[in-house]
């Protein structure tokens, strides 16, 4: 075979040497994407350090752009966590047609069944929560999700508490962090610590959130209901009634249970469900509802939200 173009070799050599100059530019383009990601995370850290309004609507456009990038990255990491939890299977989405030859072939090449990672395998989703927390440290929901899944995968609360402590350092005025810690201590049946964090959460509610939002009001309902049970357990019935009155005020349409209990306690009668039974029931419920997103995810699966 040999070389059939010997006379071109010198010309090509010169050409190649000249083209090599372009390679650093190529490397710069490749590293540019990585630097952009790092800059996005850095911008969020800077914004968090200097207050939530530091880079608000009037902030520099570049900073806002970087923060938006961080939010997108964080959401992408959460999506990835969900996909990982489903063993890499794609989420079900309705399509205009499902019978093309390409879809049929893709269906036979890619896994389409519906599975959940269980037990220790579920810890494979945790790196994505770690990345989401790094990308957007001012978003407490990421920390709540991470702590929920850590407690679930590890079976212990210490790692979950560490995550919430980290979130507390970044967001010392966000009631959600304290509510999350209250849930974890309640689960561990450490009533004094649970009360301490629920009280703190109540003091900070709603913080930067909109107090008229349903989810935010449901959070207040949860805080007050836990504190009311703790008051009952301590024998402080007037305080418990006061807390329940707060629940009725915040969610009048969803507080029949509390209205009834308030009436029974106000008349000095003994409720059918004791305070301890109620506390234990709430602790169990708390574990399931430790993270509302995680719970909703389960609800969606259980009720056919995804194609089996």
């Amino acid at each position: 075979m040999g070389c059939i173009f010997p006379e071109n070799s010198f010309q090509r050599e010169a050409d190649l040497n000249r083209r090599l100059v372009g390679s650093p530019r190529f490397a710069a383009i490749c590293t540019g994407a990585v630097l952009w990601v790092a800059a996005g995370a850095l911008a969020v850290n800077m914004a968090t350090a200097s207050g939530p309004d530091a880079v608000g609507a009037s902030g520099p456009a570049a900073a806002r752009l970087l923060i938006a990038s961080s939010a997108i990255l964080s959401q992408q990491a959460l999506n990835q966590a969900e996909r990982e939890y489903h063993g890499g299977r794609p989420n079900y989405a309705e399509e205009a047609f499902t019978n093309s030859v390409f879809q049929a072939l893709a269906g036979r090449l890619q896994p389409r069944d519906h599975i959940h990672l269980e037990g220790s395998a579920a810890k494979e989703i945790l790196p994505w929560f770690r990345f989401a927390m790094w990308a957007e440290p001012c978003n407490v929901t990421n920390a709540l999700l991470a702590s929920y899944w850590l407690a679930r995968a590890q079976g212990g609360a210490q790692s979950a508490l560490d995550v919430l402590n980290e979130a507390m350092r970044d967001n010392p005025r966000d009631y959600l962090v304290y509510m999350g810690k209250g849930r974890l201590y309640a689960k561990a049946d450490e009533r004094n610590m649970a009360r301490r964090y629920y009280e703190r959460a109540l003091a900070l509610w709603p913080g930067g959130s909109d107090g008229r939002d349903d989810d935010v009001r449901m959070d207040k309902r949860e805080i007050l209901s836990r504190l009311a049970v703790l008051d009952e357990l301590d024998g402080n019935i007037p305080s418990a009634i006061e807390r329940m009155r707060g629940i009725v005020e915040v969610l009048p349409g969803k507080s029949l249970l509390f209205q009834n209990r308030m009436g029974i306690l106000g008349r000095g009668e003994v409720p059918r469900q004791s305070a301890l039974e109620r506390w234990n029931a709430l602790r169990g419920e708390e574990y399931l509802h430790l993270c509302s997103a995680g719970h909703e995810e389960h609800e969606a699966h259980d009720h056919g939200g995804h194609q089996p």
Partner: protein
Amino acid sequence: MNVSRIVTLSRMVWLEMMRRRDVYVLLILLAALLLCLVSVDIFHLSGVVNYAKDLGLLLAWLFSWILAVIVVSRELPGEEAQGTIYSLLAKPVTRGELIVGKWLGAWTVVSVSTTCFYALLAVIVLLKGGIFHWVTTAQGLALHICALSIICAVGMLFSTRLNPDAAVTTSFLVTGTSMFFVPKIPRMLFLIERDMEWIQGWLIAAYYAFPHLELFDLRRKIVHNDAPAGWLAAGQAVLYAILITSALLLLAWAAYSRKTLSRGRQI
């Protein structure tokens, strides 16, 4: 078509690539990113590696895509810009052989580089304590290489009539659309309003006109150590890649066979 001349032409692409730094840069970048990833402390947990496999495979796909488009798109325009195309075609080499030889060289270079990316990822994941289902991984790599043959053919088609920059841009646009947009068209058609029929028509046309590169992406199976896909389905995907690549190379030959070569006068 003379096979020895085609192989010789592809060897020239190899020699050129060995002297360039693109592959080395990407390999070093991949190694650096993977080492950073596996050294991350994930809540003090041990034995968590799927994220490294996932991101490593994503980077392997990204880097091989970039490499394929850049390598193949500069071959013909580069020869024309430098004037070496005249010396080449003065030899007993047809334009068809030139196109196939350049495509073969670029495809094999990119395929070997991609295999190196996978090998690097495998070494790092194994050192971290992860495992691979080797048959699935081999199947995934084989289909990945099939996708690269289509990407190289797309680049070759555009480089017959465009200058390197335009060919690279257009190739990225077409292959990027194939990878990220085309698989979502059925979902988009479901979401768009019924009275926008003209958009629906265009989207359906695009769905069938663009290559379906998503068929060759078995990353999820590799990450989760799933069993390999059915061999009949994998064979059909390979056949599809051969058909699309052949069609694209035929179009490239048709576009190049009657082209009047004029140094430095491309779009």
